[in-house]
């Protein structure tokens, strides 16, 4: 029997949540003291988000109890959660793009005059008050689609504070921030807990926990594993608790032996959707047998760079050549035929046709070529055979998924299909954009191993990632992108994280 204790902002006990026959959460517990920062650590798919969705009232638990400030509460929906002082900042921001910052913050909680007319002036003032108190810089009148990701996150935090949140839940908060912005966020968090608030951080990033939290609860496959004081454990120990066995945190690789140039980008200028320059004179070279990693914050031109390489958009100036042959300003077909394979950032939008089967997705770029079709008629048998080799080589599960819709597979398995497909194209250059997003530790290992194996085979590999660790671990050459240009390039092992972090944020390299 658990009794409420008002020292604790929240106590969750015996939480069980089923979806059909599947247990997302089984007898899970979480206790968070007021005035503290507490992490919830687990792999992708472990149930962290589900637990928090239960706390926020988006889901109802099948069993278990929740106490807020020592009082038992039945959180039927977000309104009840909000009324109890719980605020949630989602990983994928819940912001209406077309609305302004102010409109998003006050949605559902508007101060109105008699006829229901929204009092915008009052709202702005209230918001600016909170902004000042905790140091959250935002522009109240800007539209969400026009502001940076960092500011969008602050808007999400403001949404919670505007409603008087005392307990804040942050879901993977540092995924999209620069090292400097992470510092800012940490200081904002400390302001908040100094004010007596409590913060829960959902994460799978060990560094984040070490930097921010007092305590950490580990969840694995929906079940409670342990709660530890963060100061007293090492990253290695946390990783082992999270996965359930020993984990290698560093990638194994032999030194690179780069050969001739494969991809050459010169003075590239590319405009974004709103006709502004996003790539502003970029230069980059990738050689055979080399992994070049581009480190940078999302929004510094990476998206437009990839779009220009794949010829989805034209290059305004400059050139992109593969083995000497220009591929910019052509079309995606020509680019593919020139030996370029791309693992796209958004696997469900660009990488896969979710309603097609795995067999069909495996040959998406090659449906017109032998052996998959002959004189325009598809050869389904060859498609099935090929897919089966992919499934076996990359351990795609379930292993009989060939004729199933690829949309039924988990994110990690979908990514494996894409990677297998692109590698099987035997390209001269393999480009991987955010290839490990949303994947668990095992899948991440597979992806990194694949990239290194291809490099060892003599392929050129270009890795674009927002995870600095990944870029530093996997790449032979590290390039930093900021404001549409490559600011500087380093050989692996000759540079430290702080220098790169500085460059990523626009600082200059002083030696």
């Amino acid at each position, binding site marked *: 029997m658990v009794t409420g204790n008002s020292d604790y902002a929240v106590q969750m006990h015996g939480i069980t949540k089923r979806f*059909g026959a*599947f247990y997302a959460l089984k007898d899970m517990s979480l206790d968070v003291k007021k005035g503290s920062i507490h992490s919830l650590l687990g792999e992708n798919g472990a149930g962290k988000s589900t637990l928090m969705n239960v706390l926020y009232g988006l889901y109802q638990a099948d069993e278990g109890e929740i106490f807020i400030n020592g009082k038992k509460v039945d959180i039927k929906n977000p309104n009840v959660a909000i009324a109890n002082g719980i605020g949630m900042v989602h990983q994928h921001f819940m912001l209406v793009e077309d609305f302004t910052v102010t409109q998003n913050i006050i949605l559902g909680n508007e101060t109105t005059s008699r006829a229901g007319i929204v009092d915008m002036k009052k709202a702005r003032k209230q918001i600016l008050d909170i902004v000042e108190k905790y140091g959250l810089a935002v522009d109240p009148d800007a539209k969400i689609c026009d502001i940076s990701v960092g500011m969008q996150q602050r808007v999400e935090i403001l949404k919670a504070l505007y409603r008087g949140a005392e307990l804040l839940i942050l879901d993977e908060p540092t995924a999209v921030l620069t090292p400097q912005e992470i510092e800012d966020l940490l200081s904002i968090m400390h302001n908040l807990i100094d004010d007596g608030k409590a913060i829960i951080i959902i994460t799978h990033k060990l560094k984040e926990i070490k930097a921010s939290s007092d305590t950490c609860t580990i969840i694995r496959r929906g079940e409670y594993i342990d709660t530890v004081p963060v100061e007293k454990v090492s990253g290695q120990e946390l990783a082992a608790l999270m996965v359930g066995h020993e984990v290698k945190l560093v990638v194994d690789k032999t030194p690179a032996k780069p050969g001739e140039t494969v991809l050459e980008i010169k003075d590239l200028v590319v405009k974004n959707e709103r006709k502004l320059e996003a790539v502003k004179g970029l230069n980059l070279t990738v050689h055979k047998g080399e992994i070049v990693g581009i480190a940078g914050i999302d929004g510094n031109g990476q998206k437009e760079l990839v779009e220009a390489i794949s010829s989805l958009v034209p290059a305004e100036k400059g050139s992109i050549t593969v083995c000497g042959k220009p591929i910019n300003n052509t079309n*995606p*077909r020509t680019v593919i035929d020139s030996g370029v394979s791309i693992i796209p950032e958004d696997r469900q*939008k660009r990488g896969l*046709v979710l*309603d097609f089967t795995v067999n069909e997705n495996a040959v998406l770029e090659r449906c017109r070529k032998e052996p998959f079709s002959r004189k325009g008629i598809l050869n389904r048998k060859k498609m099935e055979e090929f897919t089966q080799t992919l499934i076996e080589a990359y351990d795609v599960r*379930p292993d009989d998924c060939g004729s199933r819709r690829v949309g039924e*597979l988990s994110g990690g398995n979908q990514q494996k299909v894409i990677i297998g497909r692109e590698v099987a194209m035997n390209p001269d250059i393999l480009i991987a954009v955010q290839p490990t997003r949303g994947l668990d530790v095992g899948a991440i290992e597979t992806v990194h191993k694949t990239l290194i194996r291809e490099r060892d085979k003599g392929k050129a590999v270009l890795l674009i990632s927002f995870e600095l660790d990944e870029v530093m671990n996997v790449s032979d050459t590290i390039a930093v992108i900021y404001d549409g240009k490559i600011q500087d390039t380093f050989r692996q092992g000759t540079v430290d994280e702080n220098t790169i972090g500085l460059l990523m944020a626009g600082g200059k390299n002083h030696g």
Partner: protein
Amino acid sequence: MDKAIKILKKPLTMTLIAVFFGFIVAGIILAAAGYPPVHSLSVLFDGVFSSPKHISNVIIKSTPIILTGIGVAFAFKTGLFNIGAEGQFIMGCVASTVVGILFDFPPVIQIPLVVLAGVAAGALYGGIAGFLKAKFGIHEVLTSIMLNWIALYFSNYICTLNRFHKPDTIGTYPINRSGYTMILGNYKTTEAGKAALAQNEFLRSTVLKTDVNVGIIIAVILAVFIWFLLYKTAKGFELRAVGFNKSAAEFSGIYVNRNILHSMLISGAICGLAASLYITGNSPHGIATLAAFENTGFNGLSVCLIAASSPIGCIFAGLLFGGLIYGGQSLQYEVGAPSEIINIVIGVIVFFVALTRIIPPLVDRFSKGGKKHA
């Protein structure tokens, strides 16, 4: 349990359930309005099945909507909502009639000429909407609605031209006989022919009394061909990829705009084919001034939805639809119930088709438990 789940997930089951409910609701409405429900439904059945003449007529009347249904279904499969089937059908009729009147070659040339005219007209007309979408991004529903009306009035205009207008009527001359696609069309109008056919009861009630034509045969062949095109060829693969996910298709090297255009061209062509087979196979073998849409295209849309956009399914859905409409006439005649009850039945069936469409995903959810394998 697994077997039951499998059966529940088949589209055919959905349609049958929807049809069943359609009839139930019809029965309720009829009863509420004071008409005997069971008797009415049996009159309906008789109206369709009780004689070869009826069956023949149902097949003949279903042919155009089977074809327009396939046309709309093709567009759906490739991600486009071809609400312009009506306009494409009308333009096909106009083209077939005009060419059929202006030229008079021997049948072996005339028939393909007239049919191709209709197909080309339908294709071009569908292509306009496709082009506007591919090039300017204009919603094909919007342009198609406009194009439907333009086609209607253009058709009426043609009917007024001296070259085509048949005096004392609101329509055109019939096309030259050399273009007819009726079965034994010429033979059965001769004295000898009539006598010979009258001897066999079956032939008398079908060939002599109805406009038996090759349309249905073409429709079936086309359904199979379209099915083959969509699922067995690389082109169909690309078209369906564009329909499901334009972004991924584009990224994998498929030419999206080209495929959107091709899709509307083909869809329009099929509707045009429906039109030319209709003109060449059914009296009066011409067009008339219309006060409102005849709905061949819109009914094709309903057929397609009942058939869940399956080309082969359209054959059966089209026959169902045609049977209901034809049988509805008997209903009005014998029982006095307004024939509009048929429209209500069809509407309810389509409504339930919409509802039953959610059953397979629901079934999936329950059996798998919602989350995917990690």
